[in-house]
Each structure stands twice: as structure tokens, then as C-alpha cells.
């Protein structure tokens, strides 16, 4: 095992101050979170942080030697750029350890006005190869890139051999199957753009209805699923929906599964990854606590050379099934 691999950083989600504290208490090295508006990609009702809550959260994290990464990772609406720019200012003022950005204009703005602020390139920027990453590093001085969930472990290793910046990869949670930040499926069905409004499959356009023995979910009026009482219910996201394409009837894009790459921690470490990320800012503090604790245990086991217990989080996942996703090439 290389020395670098031992220092894997665990990056954990928090949608509320309670989940934030749960993540820190369960052993997060860093927590990522967002302000309670359209500047972040989990802009769901009842979620996220006011400026005061963010200040308190950062204080709590720093008292416990953990870092705070603030996601300002939607694409500023034309004519309202100031709101995103102000979010970056506030993050810097409140003492965030880094901001996670996706928009070129915002990266440019942040790099020029806050030269001391650490910039991470969001997964929403879909920087999927060494050239794209080199561009963000050279032009904006980005220090870390969150890799899109379309790469194999081998490809991640190849990227890390070519670049100087750190990479962060998702290891658990919801799995986007499209290049992130470049998908307007939800927008096409609902009129709310994930890129601009910060919510994929917004709850305001979701409808669940019991029809006979089946639970039917609709997004913007389009039927996405129809499941019997015995089946697991999925999120109403289009890319996990059941459709008909030619003779094929089923999950045209992806099964309702969640990513769980706990068993790939050694390979990801050897591939030169700096940080492992858990998805789920929209989940409860119970989820945060359980997943963070489990992954922290796995990282500690790996660092100590012990075997990693995998698969213990299946109950928490969509479809109650997990996949290692694109990390294995057969996924494509």
C-alpha cells in the first residue's frame, strides 16, 4: 500500500445542521453542504443552511478538526449572477475550507476575487478526462476535481497519472447515469432545470398514486414507475424509470440501484484518488450517521490492513440494491 493511499479523505453530505453534526460525530473528515437557495444542486424544500446555520456548522467542524466544503454548484441564471457570486463571497467570509463550483463564469469570478479560496470543480462540471481537468487547474487554479460517475477505476488511475490536482470520487449513494450537469431530462418533463434551479425531479412535480395494487409515480405527468406492493419503491428520477423502447420494456437507462463502492476502496486508493465522497444531502441524519460511520470504519480498516466489510448498507439504498456502477467497464 502506498503512503498516499492511507490518507484517504471521507467527504460526507449534510442537508441540515443536525445531519452535519451527525456526520462529524460519525467520523467525517469533511462535510459538504449548501446554502438554502438555488445556488446548490440539492435545492429541496426544508433543506440546507442559512448563513447563520452555516457559520455555526463551520465552527462545529473546525472544533472537531473536520473541513467544510460549500457546494455552489448550479449554473447561475442569466441576469442573477450576483446571487451566486455573493454565495462564494459568503462562503469565503464564513471560513469555508473550499467551495465546490461548476460554472465557468463563477470559477473565473471566484478565482479573480478570492485568490486564497480553495476551488474544487464540481461533478456538475463533468470534467471527465485529463485535458478538461488540466484546463480547470491551469486557468482557475482549481485544486481538486470531483470526477463524474462515468469512469472506470482504470481510467481514474490513468487520469491521476497525468494531472497534478487532487481527485474525489463518489463511493456511495444515488447514481447519475448521465454526464452530470449536462442533463435536461427533468427539465423537459417539469420545466424546472436541475442546472439552474438545483433540483432534479422536483417534489412539486412528483405525484404518487395508488392504482389498484400498484404504486404509480409520475413526474410532470409522465408515468415513471409502476410497482407492486412487493417491490421496492424507487425515486421518481427519469433515468431510473421504466419505459418501453422498441421491443425492450424496463429500465431503459438504469435499474433503480444505488452506488456502493466500499469493496473498491483499495483499488480507488491505488488509483491515486485523494477523497471518497458519499452522496445524499437530501437524506436524513439517520442515513448520514449510518453511512458515514460504516465508511469511516472501512477506511480505518483499509489503513490498518484489515479486510473491509461491504454490503452492510443495502437497506438504505434505492431499490435496496447496489452496484459498483461505471467503476467496472461492463456497466457501459
Amino acid at each position, binding site marked *: 500500500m502506498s503512503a498516499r493511499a492511507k490518507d484517504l479523505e471521507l467527504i460526507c453530505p449534510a442537508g441540515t445542521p443536525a445531519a452535519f453534526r451527525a456526520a462529524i460525530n460519525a467520523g467525517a473528515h469533511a462535510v459538504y453542504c449548501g446554502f438554502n437557495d438555488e445556488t446548490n444542486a440539492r435545492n429541496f424544500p426544508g433543506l440546507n443552511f442559512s448563513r447563520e446555520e452555516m457559520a455555526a456548522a463551520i465552527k462545529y467542524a473546525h472544533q472537531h478538526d473536520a473541513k467544510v466544503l460549500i457546494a455552489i454548484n448550479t449554473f447561475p441564471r*442569466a*441576469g*442573477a*449572477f450576483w446571487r451566486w457570486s455573493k454565495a462564494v463571497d459568503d462562503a469565503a467570509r464564513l471560513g469555508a475550507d473550499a467551495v465546490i463550483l461548476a460554472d*465557468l463564469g463563477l470559477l473565473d469570478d471566484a478565482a479573480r476575487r478570492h485568490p486564497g479560496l480553495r476551488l474544487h470543480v464540481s461533478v456538475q462540471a463533468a470534467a*471527465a478526462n485529463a485535458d478538461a481537468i488540466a*484546463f480547470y487547474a491551469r486557468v482557475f487554479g482549481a485544486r481538486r476535481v470531483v470526477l463524474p460517475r462515468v469512469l472506470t477505476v482504470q481510467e481514474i488511475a490513468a487520469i491521476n497519472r497525468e494531472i497534478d490536482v487532487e481527485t474525489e470520487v463518489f463511493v456511495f449513494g444515488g447514481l447519475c447515469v448521465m454526464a452530470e450537469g449536462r442533463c435536461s431530462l427533468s427539465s423537459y418533463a417539469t420545466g424546472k432545470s436541475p442546472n439552474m434551479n438545483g433540483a432534479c425531479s422536483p417534489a412539486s412535480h412528483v405525484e404518487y398514486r395508488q392504482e389498484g395494487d400498484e404504486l404509480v409515480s409520475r413526474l410532470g405527468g*409522465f408515468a415513471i414507475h409502476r410497482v407492486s406492493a412487493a417491490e421496492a419503491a424507487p425515486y421518481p428520477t427519469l433515468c431510473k424509470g421504466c419505459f418501453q*423502447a422498441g421491443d425492450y420494456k424496463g429500465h431503459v437507462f438504469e435499474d433503480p440501484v444505488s452506488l456502493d463502492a466500499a469493496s473498491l476502496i483499495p483499488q480507488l486508493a491505488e488509483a491515486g484518488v485523494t477523497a471518497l465522497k458519499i452522496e445524499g444531502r437530501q437524506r436524513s441524519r439517520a442515513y448520514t450517521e449510518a453511512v458515514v460511520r460504516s465508511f469511516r470504519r472501512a477506511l480505518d480498516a483499509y489503513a490498518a490492513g484489515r479486510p473491509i466489510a461491504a454490503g452492510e448498507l443495502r437497506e438504505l439504498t434505492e431499490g435496496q440494491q447496489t452496484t459498483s456502477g461505471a467503476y467496472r467497464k461492463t*456497466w457501459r
Partner: protein
Amino acid sequence: MTTKRFESTLGPLQFNWSAAAFADFYARIADEAPVDRVVIGESVCSKREPFYADRIPAAIERLERGGKSVVLASLALVTLDRERRAARELFEQTQHEVEIDDLTLMNFVRPETSFSIGPLVNVYNEATLGFLARQGARRFCLPPELPFASVEVLVAAANVNGAAVEVWAYGRIPLAISGRCYHARAHGLSKDSCRFVCEKDLDGLAVRTLEGAEFLAVNGVQTLSHKYGNLIGDLDRLAQAGVKSLRLSPHSGDFVAVTRAFAATASGEISPEDGLALLRQAAPEAEFSNGFLFGDCGAAFFPSA
């Protein structure tokens, strides 16, 4: 009195047509279609390109003879090493302008080269437009999901930066791109062993809901709208906003008729209603939408106001 209010750009062919169909299509466009610019080359899947690559030089030559300016398309999602090499080579040639459809290509831009930004690059605001313009972008085909209010702001920003704004005016709307091939998946195959099944569907494979509603279309690693984006009824307000150019995205059938319908409507020679009627004739199977322009769901269609 008629005036030319817009330039028009033929976008890159999104679908996997045979080499012969590819050559025939561009020959007809070159000789008959009233378009100013043609973006040509593979933007969806690098596995398709070898089948028609040898037809591209002749197509370009004929298009230029037909008075069109030619722009080279680039891949929408660059991941493999050979795709990166191809992207680099696009900027090593200097005869033709390049349209960037993945920010990977920004790594190869030289200070003195100007280029275009395609509809798959996230240009949502004036700061991003300004940044790219300072790097050499001269034309922006905006993301199709942008509402009119954003288009107006971006036109103003483009004017300040000496660049032109183009909008997605016709054709199935590209909604998503993935590392996974859905055409292959629907046929029980994977991307690496896809047998090029996407060639069977000239305008994409229909995706319906389990209740039978038309919804999306799969095109290899790309997902498109079922409905064809169509702004022929909205040209007045686009002209007033200062939009310079309309993008028409190729489909099977009589596409020259589509380009003529837009040219005649754009110049005021025929009414938007007559233009729409011509489009219905040219593409009888197509359903249309313009909801994105109104900040509504993309699938909605509002009659011209």
C-alpha cells in the same frame, strides 16, 4: 418587403446514418438548402465516425462550392485517449473553424484561434459567455433549455463581446449524454459490443412511458426529446431580442424543405402559420415543442403569440 433577419446553421447530424445516406444528405444540402453555415462531423459517438470519415472531405468541398461556410463538430463527451487525440487534432488544423461541444477542447485552444460554442456547453449566464468570448469564442449556440429571459440577457452580453447568439430552432433536442449506450442496452448489448444497432433508427429509438405516452428518443449514448424543438412561430420575438442565428438539426425525410420553410418564414416571405404548415408537411411524423423558450416544461407547445 422581405429582409433576411437571421443567419442559419445546420447542426451536426446526430444520428448514425449509412455512409451513402450521409453523403447524399450533405450533397443535397450543399446544392439546395438555404443555410449559411454547416457544422459537420461526429458529435455523439466516436465509434461511428470510421464508417463515414472518408466521405467528409468531399462533403465539405461540395458544401463550400455551394457557398456554405463549414465548421467542424466535436465530440460531446470526451473520455477515451483516442477521443482526446482527435479533439487535439481538431485545433491543429487551421482551415476550418471548430465548434466546441465539450469543455475538454478548451485545453487545446490557442490564443489567436477563434471558435464556436455548441449547444451542449453550459453557457447559462453573462459571466460564462464573457469568459469564453475572452478565450476566443465568436458564436454561441445556447443550451436549448434556456428560457427567453436568459436568451435576452445573453444576447446583450454577446453584443458587448463581439459575439453572435444562435438558438436551437428545429429538431429533436439533445437532453443528456452518458458513458453508457442505451441503444445497445435496449438490445441486450453493451457499448463495447454494440453491433452498431443505432443505425436502425434514423431519427432515434422512441421511448414511451408504460402508459404509452411518447416521451424521449434514444440515440446511442445520447438521449433526445421525443418532440422536435420548433421555434418557427417565435421568430419575431427572437429577432427583436437580437438573436443572430437559427440552428436546424438534421432529420430524415425532406430536410431541404425544412430549411426552406425556415428561410421563407425568417425573411417574412410567408407567415409563421404557413411556415408551420410547411414543416408539418416536411415531417409528418414529428410532434413539435417550444416550451423551454417560455420557461415551461420542454415538451410543451405554445402557438406563436
